């Protein structure tokens, strides 16, 4: 599969060459079909988005697949005609050039059809945009703040209110300096994960302290730039418990590649326990702080 994919483009363009055109076309077709099927069927495919874990991520996933099929159909229609022409209408076969150069009817047809296809694409996308933007009535609210180069989280509202911590890359330096073998979650692991309960609407308020960052968790379908001095928001409701990893998606300087985001989604009971543990830990910290004064 790895090698076949770039070959699709090269080989189907080679149809004009000396190779048997039928076998080439068949091979290109089979490769394209394999690629598309592997995207559509295998949910954990290497060639597609990570497995969606929220309604929005699922919408995005489905629309992407739909668009790929539409593109494939257009691709076959346009290049079918073009490569037929390249094969048959060549001087070396003694083909004499026609002299037509205009047809208003044809021009209108191939302007109107794309418009209709675009409307078909825009309709579901519009619904998803409206849904993505609706951050109203969340079950809980977390503020994520981008720093050079880590994330800070404050639980502002809902169960766990008052919890606050920083979240830094926990991959040891020796790993990216190639002095130690790299682990499975190389560059995608942190000291403190953002923990949220499953099935609850979580509103994430996003801002930054210094330069622009972006808070991105692919499996949850959330990406929002973190802009210093301004507040933006987004939301997700995780379908399943699990650990979902993402990265900063806006160039923010030297260590832009080293400030991952890790969200741990817990069952309701586990989450309650986690909150209790965090709050007692922070109570200890606060009392120590007071005593020291």
């Amino acid at each position, binding site marked *: 599969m*790895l090698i076949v994919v770039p070959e699709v483009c090269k080989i189907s363009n080679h149809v004009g060459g000396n190779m048997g055109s039928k076998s080439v076309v068949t091979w290109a077709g089979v490769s394209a079909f394999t690629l598309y099927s592997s995207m559509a069927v295998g949910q954990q495919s290497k060639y597609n988005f990570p497995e969606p874990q929220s309604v929005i991520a699922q919408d995005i996933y489905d629309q992407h697949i739909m668009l790929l099929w539409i593109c494939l159909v257009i691709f076959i229609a346009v290049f079918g005609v073009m490569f037929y022409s390249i094969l048959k209408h060549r001087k070396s076969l003694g083909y004499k050039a026609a002299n037509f150069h205009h047809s208003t009817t044809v021009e209108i047809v191939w302007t109107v059809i794309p418009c209709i296809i675009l409307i078909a694409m825009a309709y579901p996308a519009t619904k998803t945009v409206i849904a993505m933007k609706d951050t109203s009535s969340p079950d809980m609210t977390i503020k994520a703040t981008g720093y050079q180069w880590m994330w800070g989280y404050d639980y502002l509202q809902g169960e766990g209110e008052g919890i606050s911590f920083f979240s830094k890359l926990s991959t040891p330096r020796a790993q990216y300096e190639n002095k130690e073998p790299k682990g499975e979650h190389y560059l995608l692991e942190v000291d403190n994960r953002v923990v949220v309960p499953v099935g609850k609407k979580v509103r994430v308020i996003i801002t930054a302290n210094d330069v622009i960052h972006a808070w991105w968790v692919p499996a949850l379908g959330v990406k929002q730039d973190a802009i210093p001095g301004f507040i933006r928001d987004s939301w997700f409701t995780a379908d399943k418990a699990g650990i979902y990893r993402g990265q900063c998606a806006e160039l923010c300087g030297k260590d832009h590649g080293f400030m991952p985001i890790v969200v741990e989604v817990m069952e309701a009971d586990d989450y309650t326990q986690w909150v209790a543990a965090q709050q007692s830990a922070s109570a200890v910290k606060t009392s120590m702080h007071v005593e020291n004064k």
Partner: protein
Amino acid sequence: MAAVHGDAHGHDDHHPSGIMRWVTTTNHKDIGTMYLWFSFTMFLIGGFLAMGIRAELYQPGIQILEPELFNQFTTLHGLIMVFGAIMPAFVGFANWQVPLMIGAPDMAFARMNNWSFWLLPVAGTLLVGSFFVPGGAAAGGWTFYPPLSTQGGLGVDLMIFAVHILGASSIMGSINIITTILNMRAPGMTLMKMPMFVWTWLITAYLLVLVMPVLAGVVTMLLTDRHFGTSFFNAAGGGDPVMFQHIFWFFGHPEVYIMILPAFGIVSEIIPTFSRKPLFGYSSMVYATASIAILSCVVWAHHMFTAGMPTVGQLFFMYATMLIAVPTGVKVFNWTATMWRGSMTFETPMLFAIGFIFLFVIGGFSGVICAIVPIDIQVQDTYYVIAHFHYVLVSGALFSLFAGVYYWLPKWTGNMYSETLGKWHFWLSMFFFNLTFFVQHFLGLAGMPRRIPDYNLQFADFNMISSIGAFGFGLTQLLFLYIVISCIRSGEKSPEKPWEGATTLEWTHLPCPAPYHSFEKPPIVK
């Protein structure tokens, strides 16, 4: 105008020799040649930076470039390729071809033409030289978003100055092209009889005049934010970092069409020539080009879907962006209809033109996918976007430039290039290009952000494939250099009309090579 004509008549082939010929020249052919060599030099430098990036990304871990230097490489790769390689190359084509194709003796403002070229090496030196100043080159990406770009050192100031100079050069070049096209066409050549390449450049030049001052404005604001205490882009002083993005992309999106419309023009000359059939739907091609140019001015915020915009804003920019697919589709259909029932041959220019259409359409598909807001939320700032814009800028703009060079080399030099090596150049470029960039779609979908020097192990195999492709693509371009040099030095003498299907004035009215002064008496176009 009269003065310019009189001036041209006073000369003959005598010009200063040696370096002074090139420093003082006002001849559009000399200046065009210099533009093309300059852009190829910058292409090699930008390519060297790309090789550095791909070498670092060859495997996980930091091996060659420390993160800070890596960011300088990506930033300067983008700036040099966009402003130093692609744009000047198209201006070089305009200098050579616009007067030849409209039957004019030279460009309208011959001395300004000299000046707009000689600004370029200055700007190029500033960009390349910024690697050697304290703190190194700019490292905030070629889009230099503040506040990150406010943090950089002297390298950022050098970059701002270089962008100013490049902008001035582009504006002068565009004014020259507009004036030449509108005033100096041969008698009988009405606007709707102009070759398509001239049309696309006319529209491109208007776009340049419209947006380059905006870029100059935004870099000036950045400069005063950095050094003179203003707060245009600093929230603490009442400014807004996102405003920079709006202004930058108001320039930046028309800019991508500035880099692709002349490419459409070149391809629209080559396809009919080698199909031996007139361009299908000439007037709809003109209207499609104009529609793309106008639409390109109202879609800028599709680069900013993740910056946070009201729902209505996102929907407007999504619809407007999707609409661009319509005139672009019209162009592809027209090219296909031009080939249909033609009598085609497949010399190197035609191969690159077909390669252009094929891969540009793939880039167009990924463009529509990126236009859909929900999907863009996932793929924005990932390798998917890198793949998308390299499909339109490398296999789009660059392939059309290769096609154009092979097409017009006989006219420029009087010699033929090696057809065998030209075909090798095409097939190797085609293979390695796809090897490099097709897999980057998968990297982006799987979640690899752009502009990172190191990555998780799940991205390792595609990155290795991509790097191997990039090294192959880079080496292949040295073959191109060899082909051009050996064509100039020892190429076979070109026949008077090497392409039997060519119908434009430079092929029908001028010998190969075109004389130093051509069309001193304008041809009559029927």
